[in-house]
C-alpha cells in the first residue's frame, strides 16, 4: 500500500504538526487498549485479591495456575464448546441464509431496496431490546410460543430448559445479524458485471449453474469477510445470552466465553481468573481468523 503521497510536497515537511495530529489518538489507544491489554495478560499470572492493589497487599505470583484451572474447569469447557458451536452455527446459518437471500434478491428486479431495508433492521436495534423481546416469546407462562402451542392444543414447553436453552438463545443471535452479511454479500454480487452472465447465458449456461460457476467464485472476497466477521463475532457474544438466560441459566449450560468471563470477574470477583479467560478469547480469535484466511485464501488466484 502506498501511504507516501505527502512526501512529494513541501507542506508536510515540518514535523511538529504531525505530532499534534497523531499523538492524541495514539495516546488514547495506548492508555485504553495497549497498556490494559498487556496488564491483563500479566494479571492472569497473579493471584489478585481485588481489582486495585491496596497498600501493603501482596499479590502472589502463581504462574500458570489459572491456565491449569481453566483447562480443568467444566464450566469453561461448556463456554468454549458453546462459543465454538456458535461459530459453526454463525457460518452455516448466518452467512448461509444471508447468501441465499442475497442471491435471490439479486435475481429480482423490483423491490431490492425494500428487502434490504427490512432485512437490515434488526441490526440497528440493541441486542438488549431483542433479548427482552425474545424473553416474552420464550416465557413458560403466557409467552408467545406457548400461546401458539395452546392454540394448537399442544402442552406447553419449557423453552429455556437445560436441553433447549442453548438452541433458543442461538436463534436470536443468528437471526438478528443475517441482514448484515446479506448486505455485504449483495454488495459483492452487484459488483459482478452483467457481461459475464450474458456471455454465460449465450454459451447456454442456465441461471442455476451460473450461481456455482460465476457467482460463488467471484464473491470469495466478500464471503471471506463475512466468515471472518461471523466467527470473531461469535466469540464476542454477550448481550443476548446475558439478557435472555442471565448467568448461563439454567445451571451454567448457556455460558459463552464472554458471559463466563463477566460472571467470574464482576459477580464472583475472581478477577485474575477472568483475565485468563479474556486472554483465551483473544487467542481463539487470532487462531480462528488465521484459519479462515488460510482455508478461504481470499487473495489466491484459483
Amino acid at each position, binding site marked *: 500500500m502506498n501511504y507516501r503521497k505527502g512526501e512529494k510536497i513541501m507542506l508536510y515537511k515540518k514535523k511538529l504538526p504531525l505530532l499534534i495530529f497523531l499523538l492524541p489518538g495514539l495516546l488514547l489507544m495506548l492508555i*485504553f487498549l495497549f497498556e490494559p491489554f498487556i496488564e491483563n495478560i500479566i494479571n492472569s499470572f497473579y493471584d489478585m485479591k481485588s481489582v486495585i492493589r491496596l497498600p501493603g497487599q501482596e499479590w502472589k505470583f502463581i504462574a500458570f495456575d489459572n491456565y491449569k484451572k481453566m483447562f480443568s474447569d467444566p464450566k469453561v469447557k461448556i463456554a468454549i464448546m458453546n462459543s465454538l458451536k456458535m461459530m459453526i452455527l454463525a457460518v452455516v446459518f448466518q452467512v448461509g441464509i444471508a447468501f441465499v437471500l442475497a442471491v435471490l434478491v439479486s435475481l429480482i428486479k423490483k423491490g431490492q431496496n425494500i428487502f434490504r431495508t427490512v432485512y437490515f433492521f434488526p441490526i440497528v436495534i440493541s441486542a*438488549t431490546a431483542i433479548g427482552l423481546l425474545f424473553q416474552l416469546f420464550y416465557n413458560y407462562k403466557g409467552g408467545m410460543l406457548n400461546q401458539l402451542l395452546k392454540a394448537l392444543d399442544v402442552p406447553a414447553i419449557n423453552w429455556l430448559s437445560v436441553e433447549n436453552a442453548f438452541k433458543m438463545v442461538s436463534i436470536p443471535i443468528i437471526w438478528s445479524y443475517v441482514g448484515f452479511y446479506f448486505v455485504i454479500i449483495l454488495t459483492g454480487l452487484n459488483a459482478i458485471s452483467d457481461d459475464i452472465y450474458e456471455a454465460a447465458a449465450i454459451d447456454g449456461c442456465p441461471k442455476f449453474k451460473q450461481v456455482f460457476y460465476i457467482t460463488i467464485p467471484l464473491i470469495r472476497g466478500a464471503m471471506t469477510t463475512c466468515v471472518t466477521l461471523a466467527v470473531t463475532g461469535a466469540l464476542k457474544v454477550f448481550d443476548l445470552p446475558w*439478557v435472555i438466560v442471565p448467568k448461563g441459566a439454567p445451571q451454567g449450560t448457556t455460558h459463552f466465553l464472554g458471559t463466563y468471563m463477566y460472571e467470574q470477574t464482576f459477580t464472583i470477583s475472581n478477577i485474575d481468573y477472568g483475565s485468563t479467560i479474556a486472554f483465551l478469547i483473544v487467542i481463539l480469535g487470532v487462531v480462528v481468523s488465521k484459519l479462515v484466511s488460510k482455508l478461504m485464501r481470499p487473495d489466491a488466484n484459483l
Partner: protein
Amino acid sequence: MSVKNKKKKKIKISDIIIYAFLTLWGLTTVFPFVWIINNSFKPSREVVNSSFSLPLQFTWENYLNAFSKLDILEAYKNSLLISGSVTLGVMVLASMMAFALTRYQFRGRELVLSLIMASLMFPIFSTIIPVFKMMSNFNLINKSVSVILPQIAGNLSFAAIVMIGYMRDLPIEMEEAAYMEGAKVRQVFTRIIVPLCKPSLATVAIFCFLWSYNDLFTQLIMIRRRTKYPICALLNEISSKYGTDYGLMAASIAIIIIPVLIVYIFLQKNIIKGLTAGAIKG
C-alpha cells in the same frame, strides 16, 4: 409462439417462488417488532392470553407506567451524551490520525499502522479489567466519561482504517495549491481534507454511534448507579425487576425501539451503506 409463452410463464413462476421466499424472511424480521408494539397497548392479562389479536381493551397504561416507574428520559439523556461524545471524539481523532498517517513521512509509521491493525484483534473483554481499575483509581466509576473514553479508544482503530483508506485516494493537487497560496497545515486539514472526507466520516459516525448506544457490556461494568444508567443498562434491569409485568415490558421495549425505527426509516440508505462499507474496508 407457444414456446415463447411457455418460457414467459416459467419465469413468472420462479419469480413468485423467489418473492414468496424473500417475503417469508422479511416477515420474521418485521413480525417481532409489530408484535411488541401491538402488545404494548394491552393490559398484561391480555398479553398473556391473546397476544396475537389487536388490543380488545386499548390502553396507554403501560406507557404511563413505564415513564413513571423507570427513568427512561434520563436514560435517553445519559445514552445520547455518551454515544454523542464517543461519535464526535472518534470522528475528530480518527481523521487527525489518518491525516498524519497518509500525509507525513516519518520513522515509526509502519509500526503505528501495525499497532492499529493489531488492536482490531482485541475484544473488549481483554482490556476491560485494567480499564475498570484505572477508572476506579480516578474515581470515575458511574461517570459518563468512564464509558466514553474506552469506547472512543475501542472504535478508533476501526475508524482510522476507514479514514486512511479514503484519505489516501484524495488527489493531492488541492493541498499543493493551498500551500502555494500560503495555507498552513491546520487550514489544509480543516478546510480541504475534512470537507472532502464527509462520506467516510458519515460511515464512521453511524457505526460508532450504534456500537456505543448498543454496548451493554461497558455500561454494565462502568455505570452502577441507577440514575446514571444509559438505555441498555436500564433495559437489562427491567427484565429482572418487572419481568412478570408483560404489558410494561412490551411498552418499555417499544419505547426503546420506536425512536430507532424512525431514525432508521429516514437514514436507512446511509446506515446500510455506511456499516457495510466500514466492514468491508475494516
